[in-house]
């Protein structure tokens, strides 16, 4: 094991896959000379050259489309969009093309494409630069969606994403890039898609945290144990498509309660989807309605105090969990 930052783990994954497969190449704004807006691709141009580490103009839709076309004809592009906010400019290529080309042409081609991009609030970047869009991409059949929350998962999932033959939306988190974690040294280390991580074992309640919220959930769980005697099982699904629903349902069967924590909006969110699935397939195991903790249903404000109350923190997770134990009124008064 080696300790490294989340961004370094991503850099190592890219380096190893570029070494392993000559048809893997990187493309994105400022990834080459500049080393990436978040320095994930630092040093790669010197090592692999401009043919494989390609700076692009600011043309998100076309960058993704070029990736799709090259993936249809033998290459394995890894695209960096500077942030997930700008992926909205590329939605046509991501949904109408990357996700659907294989299906609409009867399986004649595949699109082994990775679109990497960070999301998340916390840097006071206001309404156009703070989105969390895992729910948007989760919605689309044909796409796979990964949401790594640790350095090890960042590396292991990215390697799997690059080797997978489907288009993968790989969602990093802006506030995690500098975070350190233990990462296995083994160059063959990968994290399979569709395998949730149980971050903390517990028997009283299941808390599912998405992306950065897996960490928030874990912190909340420690406080729940220390201050309320509630032992929470914390699950990080790690990929939302494919989804390790089995691990979630097994946990809920044990704990009989569930809270889902995500940074994005509540309507049509990841939690809404998971709550429906748990309701459909685990209803008999539930002693209380599935709880959700989400970002607020508004664009992200700039003012620091407003921004901080616009996405979940440990306290909201604790209150939502306590509410499942018959203390809902107290929790709502908060």
């Amino acid at each position, binding site marked *: 094991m080696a300790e490294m930052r989340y961004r370094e783990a991503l850099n190592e994954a890219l380096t190893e896959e570029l070494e392993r497969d000559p048809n893997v190449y990187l493309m994105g704004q400022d990834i080459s000379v500049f080393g990436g807006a978040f320095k994930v691709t630092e040093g790669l141009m010197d090592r692999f050259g401009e043919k494989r580490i390609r700076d692009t103009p600011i*043309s998100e839709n*076309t960058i993704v489309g070029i990736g799709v*076309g090259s993936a*249809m004809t033998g290459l394995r592009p890894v695209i960096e969009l500077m942030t997930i906010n700008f992926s909205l400019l590329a939605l046509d290529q991501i949904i109408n093309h990357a996700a659907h080309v294989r299906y609409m042409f009867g399986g004649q081609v595949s699109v082994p494409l990775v679109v990497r991009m960070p999301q998340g609030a916390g840097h006071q970047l206001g309404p156009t630069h703070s989105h969390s869009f895992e729910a948007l991409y989760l919605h689309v059949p044909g796409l796979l969606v990964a949401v790594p929350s640790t350095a090890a998962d960042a590396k292991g999932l990215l390697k799997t994403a690059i080797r997978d033959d489907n288009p993968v939306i790989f969602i990093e988190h802006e506030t995690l890039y500098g975070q350190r974690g233990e990462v296995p040294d083994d160059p063959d280390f990968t994290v399979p898609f569709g395998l949730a991580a149980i971050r903390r074992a517990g028997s009283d309640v299941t808390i599912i945290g998405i992306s950065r919220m897996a960490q928030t959930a874990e912190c909340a769980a420690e406080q729940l144990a220390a201050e309320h005697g509630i032992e929470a099982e914390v699950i990080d699904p790690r990929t939302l498509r494919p989804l390790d629903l089995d691990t979630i349902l097994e946990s809920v069967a044990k704990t009989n309660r569930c809270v889902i924590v995500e940074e994005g909006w509540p309507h049509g969110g990841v939690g809404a989807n998971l709550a429906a699935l748990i309701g*459909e397939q685990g209803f008999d195991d539930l002693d209380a309605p599935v709880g959700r903790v989400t970002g607020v249903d508004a664009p992200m404000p700039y003012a620091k105090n407003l921004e901080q109350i616009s996405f979940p923190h440990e306290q909201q997770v604790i209150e939502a969990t306590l509410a499942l134990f018959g203390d809902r009124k107290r929790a709502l008064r908060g």
Partner: protein
Amino acid sequence: MADRPLPPPETAINWFKSMTLIRRFEERAGEQYTRAKVGGFLHLAIGEEATIVGAVAALRPTDYMIATYRSHGQALARGSEPGRVMAELFGRVDGLCRGRGGSMHMFDLERRFMGGFGIVGGNLPLAAGFGLSSDYLGNDDATLCQFGDGASNQGTFGETLNLAALWSLPVVFMVTNNQFGMGTSLERHSAQTDLQVKGEGFGVPGLECDGMDVIDTWAVTEEALRIAREERQPVLVEALNYRFRGHSIADPEDYRSAEEVLEWSKRDPLLTFGDRLIAEGVINEQQREAIDLEAIATVDEAVAFADASPEPEPSSLYDDVYVLSDEVRGWYSADHRGAGLQKGEELC
């Protein structure tokens, strides 16, 4: 019309046959649409046969061709079996795309016909992607990307031409200017109506061809492909043509006059090319008739083939949404209507 000499007789006859087949195929497709055999939208290429056949004739078999939602003709010209094209229109399992794509989404990988695409301008970035693959892999394949005059107003037009020039990609962009973006005439949708110059600011030089003349289209496309392939310089070719039918079958054509259509119909590419082949002694009137009857017979067979082809199995509904991997755990889809529930480890 007679500016350029005819190609060798065998080549000229093949082009004429290909154009005739497209014309008869499209007419029959329209007829089948009115009989409800074909669903959705149906965009016919009647009047655009010379643009299609001339452009395709300039391609090598290993070159990539990509087109729009009006793409039955491109598939046929590339050599796709007419029966499989018709079966796709009918939504049958033997269709080129197994009934998943329909009229707007033809695709034949074996012939490097890389698709009809339903989103206007959506195919341009993909063409640059094919060009990037050729460049990256170090071969001399080129890509021909056809799109309409309307698509030249999309953001992807400027973005893609810029990138193709910046990266020296071997791509020929062919804007088939049939004078209308659906029902909006060129001068009402584009400030610059001389479309061949629209790429210059992006570093992509323009050429123009008479899209009603198969020989001119072939000659200009071939030169453009040579520049793209040998000089690694993308080129924009404007092919001027005219569609004789509406934008789609559901188009009443209120936006243009009968006189205008009549005027253009005098330049019908099939008629004029056939007349020239006769005038220059390549074929006689009986042979023209025989070629026409042969095309009609081929289309008859295509309809019979499509009619006989079964509908896709309902159980195949989820096929090819994903490339399933035995490495993957968990559920690709939570939709319990899906056969096998799409669980990777169970399906593989």
